């Protein structure tokens, strides 16, 4: 047989195909890159080591993909197939110029060709299966409400799977026609051997034609595939690795309004309402979204029927970005159309509780919270804050807490109790632990119980601690996440001043939100911890002795607060404490730890009511605990406590259940 590269025209044809393909690809990438440059700055080239490590783990080793076992398996097969076959494809291109071209040393060429054959067979089979899975098995996460409206993006998956099948098929056919001509079918290369059986009866000329046709169509499909990547969700083949590399490292924090220096308040373009208001990395996120639906599948807002699908934010904004910066018009420059209120509804933006489940799940580390906060920042400045938030925000402006209580009453919870008085620190006073109470535990009667439990327990353990008293204001955690940056600055400045005027070693909080805020949003010189961490240390040190054990009839489960677990990685501390309790019988819910299900949100979410919602998140969560066989839910966040408690009362199936804060549970027994 005559190798394709041996034809005199081969070099020219190959050059033309390559030139066309690569030029087109280059243009596409250039346009995509250009749009990134219109995005706002976002410094992402720090901590190279950490980034490289993350890239290795999550991009190359695909650590997050097996969270969905079947889809993860499929993807890992295709991904490794791609890595393996890249050499094969380059070799084939080279053979267009030099018939004997080889990238690999001859010694392993044979071994590689065997691997290639098996890989191609496997990838093809997997791709066919993936198509069948989509079409017939229809995984629930592709059947989201919005899929029914937005159908266009569904075809992309089939197109790419078909292209991969075609790529594999043409190469198999190429090899098969060669074996049919002068080789021996062998189990070493089963795919090509099977193909060779089909071609065995053909004439030599026919085989040569098939041989050439397979080769050239493989090359053409390869370049079509390459150019199709930046046009579709399969851009991730190129962008996923850099996207993981440039991903956000400091979880739990919120991006500043602008990364540039200078006073953001002077700008009149705050937040995100146009595509170029996003940072380049956030636009890059849109390029990278693979439409896998894992984010939405784990989104509690989506689960209770709110108008939010994180995945659709990426898909819609990607489509919008491409449409407003079209490839067909190279002279069209900065897209200026606003998408908020049109492509992304305002209600969608307010439906998120910033629980972080989507970001935890995303295999390529797409960020949603920062984007949603940026969109909210725009809405806040455009005076489009939902009405239910007006009151608590105004109270925060005027009184420093959303409950509308006078700042003078902030310490009433501590002074009205019978226990020994809490040490209220004056300026320049000193203590080991500075207890940051925050508004909820200061003013909500139920959460006050939690704060008092902390105080009694700390006193039992003989810890040196004190509170800020009337100098404390709301941490502003939700204020910032609702997009009211100016108010957040005001609150955080007041707290930082008050904190810096006292001497302390560590700050401890009741509320994981407050911990997250002080730890990740403030710039304090000393560490911030959650009470559970102090509690575990104290228990380990042996300062506290168990005096009671728990009722043998009760089965406990732990509900991970989003801002303790997902955002700050504290999963095991509360569990260790629970397991140490004498008589503890504990079960885990299906959704626990990193997959914990949000209770509905703390802070300002307490006031916020969305228009569209089928069920309360907390009710769903209580049912999960019920299904797991628990009758006591333990949590470590006052908001979770309050939300779950209300949900228990509201549901007949669960009204025998109880919810208790970890500190109350422990405090009763030591």
């Amino acid at each position, binding site marked *: 047989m005559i190798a394709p590269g041996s034809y005199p025209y081969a070099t020219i044809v190959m050059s033309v195909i390559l030139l066309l393909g690569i030029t087109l690809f280059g243009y596409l990438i250039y346009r995509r890159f250009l749009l990134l440059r219109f995005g706002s700055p976002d410094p992402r080239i720090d901590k190279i080591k950490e980034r490289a490590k993350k890239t290795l783990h999550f991009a190359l080793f695909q650590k997050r993909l097996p969270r969905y076992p079947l889809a993860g398996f499929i993807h890992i097969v295709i991904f490794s197939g791609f890595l393996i076959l890249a050499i094969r494809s380059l070799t084939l291109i080279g053979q267009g110029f030099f018939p004997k071209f080889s990238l690999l040393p001859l010694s392993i060429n044979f071994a590689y060709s065997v691997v290639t054959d098996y890989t191609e067979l496997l990838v093809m089979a997997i791709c066919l299966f993936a198509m069948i899975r989509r079409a017939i098995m229809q995984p629930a996460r592709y059947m989201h409400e919005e899929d029914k409206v937005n159908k266009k993006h569904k075809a992309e998956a089939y197109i790419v799977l078909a292209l991969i099948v075609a790529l594999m098929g043409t190469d198999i056919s190429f090899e098969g026609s060669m074996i049919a001509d002068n080789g021996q079918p062998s189990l070493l290369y089963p795919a090509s051997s099977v193909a060779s059986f089909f071609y065995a009866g053909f004439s030599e000329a026919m085989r040569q034609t098939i041989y050439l046709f397979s080769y050239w169509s493989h090359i053409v499909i390869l370049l079509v595939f390459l150019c199709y990547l930046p046009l579709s969700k399969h851009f991730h083949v190129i962008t996923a690795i850099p996207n993981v590399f440039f991903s956000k490292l400091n979880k739990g924090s919120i991006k500043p309004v602008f990364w540039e220096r200078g006073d953001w308040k002077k700008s009149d373009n705050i937040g995100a309402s146009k595509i170029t208001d996003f940072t380049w990395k956030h636009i890059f996120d849109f390029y990278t979204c693979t439409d896998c639906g894992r984010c939405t599948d784990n989104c509690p807002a989506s689960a209770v029927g709110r108008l939010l699908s994180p995945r659709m934010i990426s898909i819609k904004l990607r489509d919008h970005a491409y449409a407003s910066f079209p490839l067909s018009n190279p002279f069209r420059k900065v897209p200026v159309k606003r998408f908020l209120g049109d492509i992304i509804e305002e209600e969608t933006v307010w439906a998120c509780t910033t629980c972080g489940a989507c970001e935890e799940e995303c295999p390529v580390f797409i960020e949603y919270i920062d984007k949603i906060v940026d969109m909210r920042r725009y809405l806040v400045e455009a005076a489009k804050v939902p009405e*239910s938030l007006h*009151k*608590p925000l105004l109270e925060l402006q005027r009184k420093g807490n959303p*409950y*509308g209580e006078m700042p003078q009453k902030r310490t009433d919870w501590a002074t009205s109790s019978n226990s020994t008085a809490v040490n209220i620190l004056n300026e320049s006073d000193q203590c080991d632990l500075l207890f940051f109470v925050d508004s909820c535990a200061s*003013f*909500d*009667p*139920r959460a006050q119980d939690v704060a008092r439990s902390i105080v009694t327990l700390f006193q039992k353990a003989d810890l040196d601690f004190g509170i800020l008293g009337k100098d404390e204001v709301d941490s502003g955690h939700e204020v910032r996440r609702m997009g009211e940056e100016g108010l957040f600055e005001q609150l955080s400045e007041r707290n930082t001043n008050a904190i810096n005027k006292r001497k302390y070693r560590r700050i401890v909080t009741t509320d994981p939100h407050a911990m997250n805020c002080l730890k990740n949003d403030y710039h304090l010189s000393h560490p911030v911890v959650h009470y559970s961490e102090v509690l575990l240390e104290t228990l380990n040190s042996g300062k506290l002795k168990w005096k009671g054990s728990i009722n043998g009839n009760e089965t406990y489960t732990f509900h991970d607060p989003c801002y303790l677990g997902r955002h700050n990685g504290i999963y095991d501390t509360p569990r260790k404490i629970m397991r140490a309790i004498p008589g503890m019988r504990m079960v885990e819910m299906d959704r626990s730890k990193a997959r914990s299900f949000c209770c509905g949100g703390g802070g300002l979410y*307490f*006031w*916020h*009511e969305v228009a569209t919602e089928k069920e*309360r998140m907390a*009710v769903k969560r209580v049912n999960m605990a019920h299904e797991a066989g628990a009758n006591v839910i333990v949590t470590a966040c006052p908001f979770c406590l*309050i939300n779950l408690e*209300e949900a228990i*009362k*509201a549901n007949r199936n669960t009204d025998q259940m109880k919810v208790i804060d970890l500190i109350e549970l422990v405090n009763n027994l030591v």
Partner: protein
Amino acid sequence: MSEIWVLGEIEKDQVKEVSLELLSEARELAEKRSWQVVGIFPCENPVEKIETLGDYGANEVVCLLHEGFPHAQPEGLSSVLFELLAQRSPRMILSSTASAGRDMAVRLAVKARIPLISDARIIQISRDGSKIEVTKPTYEKKVFTRFECPEQKSVVITFQQGILGVEKVRNPVPARITTHRAEWPENCNRLKYIERFKADPRTLGVEDAEIIVAGGLGTGGKRTFDLVGELAWTLGGALAGSRPACDAQWVEKNRQIGASGKSVKPRLYVACGISGAIHHTIGMRESEVIVSINKDANASMTKLADLKVKGDLQEILPHLVDEINKRKAEKATT
């Protein structure tokens, strides 16, 4: 300067209770100073009850008759009142804070350019009658402020219903009753009355209601919750619910009271089976009078309530509705 006026109101052919209260108050103030109490009643037709106003302390009753009085001719009425005021210069004019009374009071004060003290609580007059001191709540009723009225000038003072109370005179003398056909110059017709929208008590919004009866999870179900509605309508108030009650669809979402619902400040808030989680109380804690009916006497709502009732809603509510209906009927006949 020896008259106290009461701007009277008539509703459904009855003299409104607040007008009787004002007459009683005027009588008490006038008593020691031999001042005259004059009831001024702008109305379409004189009603029977007017004849008996002497029982409440009126020396004289002036009926100002005109079609559409008082609401349809606000400017015309104030012009007529002003003319009367110019003739008789009363020392003070008492009116109610209800929509009709308040409008008459303000318009008269404006027309006559005299001071107005609205929502007063106490009037004190010096022995010789020259000095009048009025106390009224300020700072959302947390502080009481005293004002001194100018001497030798009329002053308009308004009172809320239910503050003063009604007292019949021991030895009543029938009041002298005069009726006037009201007339006024053409330039007092700048406002054209179109119509009145009567709200259906069953769809009365919580924002509009002076009385709100709300139910929570403690009602235990839709059936008991409907009894809560019954009580609301009997009292002429609006029905509301806590968040769980709204979630359970016992009552519409737009009637949800609380942090994520509506914030209200009615004169009366009756909480039926509401435990009083802060989510709820944040939306109603500024209500003037709070009544809590709950099985659990330790519920946080009980701490907030002016009247704390422990009991089973299913048993109490039907009795309560009957009792109120009975009392209403009794009141109408006396």
